[in-house]
């Protein structure tokens, strides 16, 4: 029965998955167990994405199913019972750029791979990044962009983080369509990743290096 739910989610069978959760809740199954299955399913979805069997539409569909399950179970869910995390990441799209799609995919992948992700939004100034870093004390800061005009924003943010004496002890990683080795060096980031799968590897490497 339980494996049914995992398969439903992995196969993106929305209606079946939601019906199953309803049944399980009616049978008074523990929400922790249901969420445990969901996490297993999402890990499988992430693995399929990594193997290029799944693409962005499948990730979005899986996330949509997950959101609905979370809503259904929210009342009974004890938030303190979250599992331990690999590390904490503050992530945002830099000033001058309002794009969020790439960032959302990276959020998803980091999340299902065990990171605590704090998404602070789009068009984020260096002041705001500094505030959020002070507030959350993350292991990693992720800067996202889609446009080439964001290069100088990234550089400015990293310079300002340095000036605010916050650079030590955190790793700054960048990503987005126009990013490459040259830009990574230009802006002074610790690393960059080409896509959401490589972003997870990069974040893991960064945590090990912390």
């Amino acid at each position, binding site marked *: 029965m339980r494996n049914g739910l995992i398969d439903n989610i992995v196969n*993106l069978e*929305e209606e079946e998955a939601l019906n199953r959760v309803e049944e399980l809740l009616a049978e008074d199954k523990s929400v922790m167990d249901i969420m445990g299955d969901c996490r297993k399913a999402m890990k499988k979805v992430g693995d399929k994405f990594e193997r290029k*069997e*799944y*693409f*962005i*539409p*499948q990730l*979005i*569909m899986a996330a*949509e199913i997950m959101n609905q399950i979370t809503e259904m179970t929210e009342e009974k869910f004890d938030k303190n019972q979250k599992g331990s995390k690999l590390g904490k990441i503050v992530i945002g799209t830099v*000033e*001058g*750029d*309002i*794009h969020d*799609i790439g960032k959302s995919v990276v959020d998803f992948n980091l999340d299902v791979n065990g990171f605590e992700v704090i998404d602070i939004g789009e*068009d984020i100034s260096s002041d705001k990044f500094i505030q959020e870093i002070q507030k959350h004390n993350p292991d990693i800061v992720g800067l996202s962009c889609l*446009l*080439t*005009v964001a*290069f*100088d924003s990234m550089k400015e943010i990293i310079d300002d983080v340095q000036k605010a004496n916050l650079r030590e002890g955190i790793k700054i990683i960048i990503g987005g*369509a*126009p*990013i*490459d080795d*040259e*830009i990574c*060096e*230009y802006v002074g980031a610790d690393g960059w990743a080409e*896509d959401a799968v490589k972003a997870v590897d990069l974040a893991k490497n960064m945590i090990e290096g912390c």
Partner: protein
Amino acid sequence: MSSKEEYEKLEEGDKRLKRINDAIKLKKPDRVPILLMNHFFPAKYYGITNEDAFYDLDKWLNANDRFIEEFKPDLYFPPNAPVFAPGKVNEMLDMQQVKWPGHGVAFNKSFQFVEDEYMSQEEYDLFIDDPSDFVFRKYLPRIFNNLDGFKMLPPLKTFMLGYTGASIISAFANPKVIESFEKFLEAAKKSAEWNNAYNEFHKKQLEKGYHAFNGATALAPFDVISDMLRGMKGSMLDMFRCPEKIIAAEDKILPCMIKVTIQNAKMSNNPRVFIPLHRGADGFMSNEQFEKFYWPYLKKLILALIDENLIPCPLFEGKYDQRLEYLQELPKGKVLGIFDKSDIFKVKEKLGDIMCIAGDMPASLLKVGPKEKIEKYTKKLINKVGKDGGFIMSSNTVLDDVEPELLKKWVEYTKEYGKY
């Protein structure tokens, strides 16, 4: 192969055009042509802001004119591409779908598109039933706040009742409707002022021997749904929840897109049609989904434009490494494909005898240099991708933010090393 003598007889302007056309026909021109996606670069370089570009027509066209004179590209990117509508028009209509310099984004940044679900999933049937009516009465009020009154209009097809339905016209007397139409007309006049100036600009450039990259712009039918109507998330959930609606909507969009594009291209007197592609890239969908939702309609659009003797110029944004086999289905020597992050050498191998290849020079390299690296990569592109012709030098994306000195070097290297 075109002989050198043929080129020598020509004026500079005709030489540029022949160079481009030879490359598109997969032949060897006298040298590798260069397409500059100047976009907002002329603003920064000649000391005006991107906000000025949206508000001061003379300054903006002057900057573009100087740019073309100074860099002498074989194809220039039209100034009406980045400044698609003047800032005043956006203000008059209270544009919601775009933030433009000084209005939602900083004065020196590029305009940016605000993606949203401008059409709900439940509205597919309304759209499919009558796209024109849907876009006029439902869509326009959502993307332009000041056209809110259009919402109150009766379905436009009611006019088919002829004189027996003449009283319907009274619906237009609603004060909100009147207000919206007044704004609409005001914006139309302002917009026409800029459009006329753009047309004059292109005519003047042509007299001076310079060619605009494109006249018309078209979108892939799936991108219309995903970018403009449903948003990325909406359209991707639709692939699972109501795939048949996407297909039915694309069946409606395709003939509209073909007709509108042909008309725009003919009016512009420029056969090159720009088709920026968004959601068809690797990663954005599986090959199976690409085959179902994206490619059939894009292919039909491209073939229909070729039938009208137009030159489709798709910009393959992102990577298309997994999709190159599909592109092999296109007819030979009729398409100019600009590539962004695809493996350009693989593209040459797979598509070198199908389409003229452009793009790839990373805008990031033109931003940070050094020039030696640019020189080396320019040579590599010329030697490998430019081998035997069918290649146009260009960047992987727009040149908004590149270093002027590095840009000049790149153009110089292309003209120097690109000789066949």
